[in-house]
Each structure stands twice: as structure tokens, then as C-alpha cells.
């Protein structure tokens, strides 16, 4: 075996390359200068210089969600590290694999309140899957190997590696060897589910009269989409996806009831409430789904499949818990069903589908035109869906536009819908779209945003110029923090406390132009499709499409707080 002598900084870059890393998102600073010098002297890993460390984490996150491979971030100590925190928390809440390498002050200065010192391990502790402080340059390869293993296996998540500056000293050289495998005695990855439990679940599932399959981000992350389709079609059971699970089951399929939860469809929420068996796969019975837990699916047996034992019976008790990887459990389920003598109760199922079709007829997502050539935000998403043939990667920020995108863009493929579901991070969408574009340079990467969220990371317009990233930004501009305003309309007597700022909004067209991009303003419905089409025809340019939309529009359906899943507002004047 050939042994080379490398510095700590070089060891790190080499280890990342050996781990298969192709892109790092980062921002240099004092504590990581040795590492940046090691980056300068190689051409295997591309480094993307963002304009704010938060954007580096979101870009890496977008990359990870779209590709399934971990995103890698490199930031300096102190403010570099703290700026990355929001992005780490975002990835943690949505179980996204990410490696964040942060510089740290010289080992001898740790604890002395040195310049740009912060306790990154301490600050990030509650929002990482694990973290490492490097104490010896020779440990770097094994730590990198462990970090990637931990970040990508089991329930994925972010891992922080904090590296004091002296560890990467270019004058101290060490032998380099990258380990081929890693084993941690304290970390085992659940693989196969318990066969007895799966059998039990299958018996209940096949005997169901009003079943529903409720799936989430775990199916996307666990690459279980094809198996889910096979299972659902074999049984002819209805499927609903969470906000995080959109795309795991094709939205245009007849068996798909749409998203469930707070802004889920009428049919999805009614079907959940009235079901007698819920098969939850890769979901966590989040409060935005269940509404009041004591009124949740009163007649249903809960079958819950997840790779994380702690996700099971955390909020809703599972009647049959199954811990295992989504793919292995689904494979085993399919096998059991095919072998089983038990058959689906088609008579009951027909009645169930009739009931569901009745709910569907309500057409809860029907858009009533505003008139006077005013654009409804939903119409923008419908238009976007049409002109991109439903094939774009769509990232979103957080608020009304996020819900409209989730409701009206019909995702037929997993990993196309990129949004911060758990933490709800405004400012996520644009940098995430950059990460997607870098992963798939020829794909259409769209950021659906609002004028509020966009201003939280607009500095990345410069990054997109530097690397020629032709991201399309569709801004649903209602001149207000729409979701906040909606709640203020509904619960605070229309008192818009600090949710409006129309008089101080920038001219987004000029803003885009100032960064060297193209800006388009659309104010009339009659112009919407043509102008959007034109903008998307500019394949190699970033286009900021500023669409003025009806500022009074609310997102419906909307769960009535404290109620059951069947309790929804369907419009400003109608409720269930």
C-alpha cells in the first residue's frame, strides 16, 4: 500500500474526495484557511462560494434532497459556524443527510474566548445526529468515514465535524489512509422489520374496510417510492402524502387523494378521519397532520412503519409498530400479500371508494378567478405546472406560497419537491434551488417564494451569477407576510401586526438586474402564461419572475385548531 504524507487540511480534502464528495458549499475565514489552501491545490472537488453561511447549508440540503447523497458544508469558526445553525436545524428536522465542517480556533485557545471562538459542538448539539471535535490530524479519515456513515444511514441527519486550526497546519504531515469500512459498537442500523409484526400488520391491512395509506418523507428518503406504488396498486387502497412526502406517490394517479393535514385536501383529511386502518409509512404523526390527537382517526387501527423507533408511538400510539428500513419492510409486505390466501374485501373497498369520490366531488382546490385581470396565487402554480410539464424541481420557502405549491404542483416523482417542512425556514428555498441546480445542471430548478421569504437570502443572487446557475424564481408577491396575515385575518380580527410592508418593497426586477440577471414583473392574469413561458425559455439565465397576486387570498382547506382531521375551513365562508 502506498503511503503519502499529507497535512491535516490535505487529509480532510482527500478524505472527502475518497468519500465521493463532488461539491462543497462554503465560505472561508481565519480558522479554515489551511483547509481552503488545500482546496486550492486540487481539482477534484468543486467549491461553491456562497454569500452567507446559512445559504451554504440550505444549498447542501437542496443538493441532498434532490440527489439522495449527503450535502457538504465548510464554514469558519464563530460567526461562520453560528450562521450555519439555521440550516443544520432545518436539515435535522427533515432528516436530511449533511456534513458540516466548521473551523475552530487553535486548540490552545479553546475556552479562552478567543477571536471568532464559539462552542460549535455545544451550540449544535440538539440539532445534529452526531458531532465530532477533531483532536488529532491522523483521526480525520476515520472521523470523516464515521460522519458520512452516521449521516446517511438509519434515519439520516446532519453531522458536524469541528476542526481546530492547528489540526490542519500545513507544516505538519501525516500518513494518509482512508478506511474502507466503519463499525461503531454503539450504533446499529435497523434493516429488516420484525416478520411477525409485518404479518400481523398485513392481516389487519387486508381485512380493512376503509383503509388508507399515509406516507411521508421517510418514503422519499428511504427510496421506497416504487415499492409504495406497487403496494398501493396491488391493494387498490387510497394514498395520501404528507407535505414532506409529496412525490413519493404520483400526484396524478387516481388513487392519490392529495396532501393531508393542516392544508390538506378535503378528501384526504375526511378519508383519514373515517378510515378503519391507517398504514403510516415513514411518517411521524406530526401536529400539522393530526390536529387534535385525542380526536385523531377515532375508528382506526394504526400500523406504523419507520426506521426510527423513537418516531413510533411518540404522539399517536401504534397498534402495530414496525421498525425497519422502508424498502425491506415494503418488500416483505408485498411478498406476504402475494403469498397470502387472504384477499382484499373488494365489496367494502368499492363502497369506500364511492365515499371518497363523493368527497372528491367537493373539488376543494377549485380556483375561483378573481376577475379584473387580477392573478390568484394558485393560478401561478397551475401555470408553472403546465409550462414545466410537471417535471421541474420545485423548492419553496415558507408561507402561503409553500402551501399553494404543495397543493397545486402535482409531483409525480420523489425528490422533486424541496421544502423545509419541519423547521419551516423562510429563506430556505432560493439557496436550496441553487443546490439542486448544481446537482442537475440541465434540469429546471424553480424556487417558488414570496417577497418576504426571498428577502431572507437574496444575497445568493450573486452566487448564481458567479456560477451561472439559471434558477427560476417565481415570487408570489402579495406585498405582505401572507400566512401571518391570513392568521391575523382569521384569529386576530384583521389586525395586521407587523405583517405588511408594501411601501418599502424593493423593485425586484431592478434588483435582479443589479446582480446581472433577468427580472420580469407580471401583474395581469392575461399576461401570466405568455410572460412565464418567455421567462422559462431563457434556459441559461436566472430569471426573477415577480408576480403580483391577490393579496387577500387565503390558503384553504385549513384545519380548525383543536378539532379532528375532518374539521376544516373550506373557504372564508364555508366549514365542515
Amino acid at each position, binding site marked *: 500500500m502506498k503511503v503519502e504524507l499529507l497535512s491535516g487540511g490535505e487529509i480532510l480534502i482527500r478524505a472527502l474526495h475518497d468519500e465521493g464528495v463532488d461539491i462543497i458549499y462554503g465560505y472561508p475565514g481565519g480558522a479554515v484557511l489551511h483547509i481552503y489552501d488545500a482546496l486550492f491545490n486540487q481539482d477534484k472537488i468543486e467549491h461553491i462560494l456562497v454569500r452567507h453561511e446559512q445559504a451554504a447549508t440550505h444549498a447542501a440540503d437542496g443538493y441532498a434532497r434532490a440527489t439522495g447523497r449527503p450535502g457538504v458544508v465548510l464554514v469558519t469558526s464563530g460567526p461562520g459556524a453560528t450562521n450555519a445553525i439555521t440550516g443544520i436545524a432545518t436539515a435535522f428536522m427533515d432528516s436530511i443527510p449533511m456534513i458540516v465542517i466548521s473551523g475552530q480556533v487553535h486548540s490552545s485557545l479553546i475556552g479562552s474566548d478567543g477571536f471568532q471562538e464559539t462552542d460549535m*459542538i*455545544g451550540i449544535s*448539539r*440538539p440539532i445534529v445526529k452526531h458531532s465530532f471535535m477533531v483532536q488529532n490530524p491522523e483521526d480525520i479519515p476515520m472521523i470523516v468515514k464515521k460522519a458520512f456513515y452516521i449521516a446517511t444511514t438509519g434515519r439520516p441527519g446532519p453531522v458536524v465535524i469541528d476542526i481546530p486550526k492547528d489540526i490542519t497546519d500545513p507544516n505538519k504531515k501525516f500518513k494518509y489512509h482512508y478506511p474502507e469500512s466503519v463499525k461503531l*459498537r*454503539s450504533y446499529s442500523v435497523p434493516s429488516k422489520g420484525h416478520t411477525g409484526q409485518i404479518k400481523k400488520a398485513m392481516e389487519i391491512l387486508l381485512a380493512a374496510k376503509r383503509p388508507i395509506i399515509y406516507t411521508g418523507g421517510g418514503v422519499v428518503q428511504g427510496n421506497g417510492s416504487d415499492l409504495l406504488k406497487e403496494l398501493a396498486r396491488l391493494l387498490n387502497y387510497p394514498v395520501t402524502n404528507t407535505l414532506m412526502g409529496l412525490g413519493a406517490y404520483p400526484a396524478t394517479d387516481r388513487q392519490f387523494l392529495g396532501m393531508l393535514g393542516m392544508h390538506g385536501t378535503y378528501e384526504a383529511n375526511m378519508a383519514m378521519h373515517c378510515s378503519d386502518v391507517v398504514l403510516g409509512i415513514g411518517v411521524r404523526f406530526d401536529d400539522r397532520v393530526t390536529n387534535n390527537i385525542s380526536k385523531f382517526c377515532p375508528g382506526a387501527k394504526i400500523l406504523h412503519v419507520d426506521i426510527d*423507533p*423513537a418516531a413510533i408511538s*411518540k404522539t399517536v400510539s401504534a397498534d402495530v409498530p414496525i421498525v425497519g428500513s422502508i424498502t425491506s419492510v415494503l418488500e416483505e409486505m408485498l411478498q406476504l400479500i402475494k403469498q397470502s390466501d387472504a384477499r382484499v374485501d373488494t365489496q367494502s373497498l368499492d363502497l369506500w371508494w364511492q365515499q371518497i369520490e363523493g368527497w372528491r366531488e367537493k373539488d376543494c382546490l377549485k380556483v375561483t378567478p378573481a376577475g379584473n385581470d387580477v392573478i390568484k396565487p394558485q393560478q401561478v402554480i397551475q401555470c408553472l405546472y403546465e409550462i414545466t410539464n410537471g417535471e421541474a424541481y420545485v423548492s419553496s420557502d415558507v408561507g402561503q406560497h409553500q402551501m399553494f405549491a404543495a397543493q397545486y404542483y402535482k409531483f409525480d416523482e420523489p425528490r422533486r419537491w424541496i421544502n423545509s417542512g419541519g423547521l419551516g425556514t423562510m429563506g430556505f428555498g432560493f439557496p436550496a434551488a441553487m443546490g439542486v441546480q448544481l446537482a442537475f445542471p440541465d434540469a429546471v430548478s424553480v424556487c417558488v417564494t414570496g417577497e418576504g421569504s426571498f428577502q431572507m437570502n437574496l444575497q445568493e443572487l450573486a452566487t448564481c451569477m458567479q456560477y451561472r446557475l439559471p434558477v427560476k424564481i417565481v415570487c408570489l408577491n402579495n406585498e405582505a407576510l401572507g400566512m401571518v396575515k391570513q392568521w391575523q385575518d382569521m384569529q386576530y380580527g384583521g389586525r395586521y401586526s407587523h405583517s405588511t410592508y408594501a411601501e418599502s418593497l424593493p423593485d425586484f426586477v431592478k434588483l435582479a438586474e443589479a446582480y446581472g440577471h433577468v427580472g420580469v414583473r407580471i401583474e395581469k392574469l392575461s399576461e401570466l402564461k405568455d410572460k412565464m413561458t418567455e421567462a422559462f425559455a431563457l434556459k441559461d439565465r436566472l430569471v426573477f419572475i415577480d408576480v403580483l397576486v391577490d393579496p387577500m387570498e387565503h390558503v384553504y382547506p385549513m384545519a380548525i385548531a383543536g378539532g379532528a382531521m375532518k374539521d376544516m375551513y373550506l373557504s372564508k365562508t364555508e366549514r365542515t
Partner: protein
Amino acid sequence: MRHIISILLENQPGALSRVVGLFSQRNYNIESLTVAPTDDQTLSRLTITTIGDDRKIEQITKHLNKLIDVVKLVDLTEGAHIERELMLIKVKATGAQRDEVKRTTDIFRGQIVDVTNTIYTIQLVGTSEKLDSFLAAISGTTVLEVARTGVSGISRGEKVLNV
């Protein structure tokens, strides 16, 4: 209900803070906590007493198991076990109190480990309940200082917690 959870933890910097942080982060309660290295230098043994219903305890053990530094754990209260806590207690011992405190200490099988003209320092080992009872028994005496270690525990019989 009170539970005693014993944990084998990687003897790594920051490992303890992950365990303690988990409890505060998820709004769980730590009644007492003891930690020290074991015969295996790579491992620490932690014993935490906490209070919660079965559902909460299940979540606590699941989340503890998710911590990468946690190698193994057991809820001792699920089976027969021995629990011990050590208490050092400094009391005023003058006049008639001197004999009374000595007698009570003997009854509880404690030891007086330091003496001055006016002070006894008593060492007592037992279950937390026994230590509480002792404090109640000498409530007529002026207690100057109490130092308790928190509970340590081990399963009875053949059952062992090791790697």
C-alpha cells in the same frame, strides 16, 4: 413512576452533555445522576433516576438509544435490582443531641466519619428512601450540610449490563 436507567456511555469528551442535553431538550426530568468510568476505560457508567409514565419512559430510552455515544442501557426498575445512594451529612451535635444522633446513626447503620466538639459528619448508604427516612428521623437536629451522590444501581442475579 420513578425509574432508574443505567447507561454504558462511550468515555468521550462531550458524551455526558449529550445525555443531559437530551433530557432538557425534550422536557424530561432528571431526579439524580451519577457518572464514573467503569473497569473498561473506554466506557463510563451513568445512572439516571427520572420520573414519568410508561409512555414517557419508553420515549426516554428510545431517544437515549439514538445517541451515538450511548452503547447500551437498561431500565433497572423493570426487574429486580439493587439501588444504593451515599449521603454525607454534617449535623450539629452538642449536649443531649450528641447521643441521640449517634443512636439514630447506629439504627440506620450509618457511620460517623468525622467528629469535632460540636459537629458530627455522618456517612450513610442505602436506597434513596432510606436516606430520606434518616433525614426525617434526625429532623430535630440542626442539619448543616447534605451531600448525596445520587442513585447507582445494578440488576440482581445473572442479568448484566456490559458490551
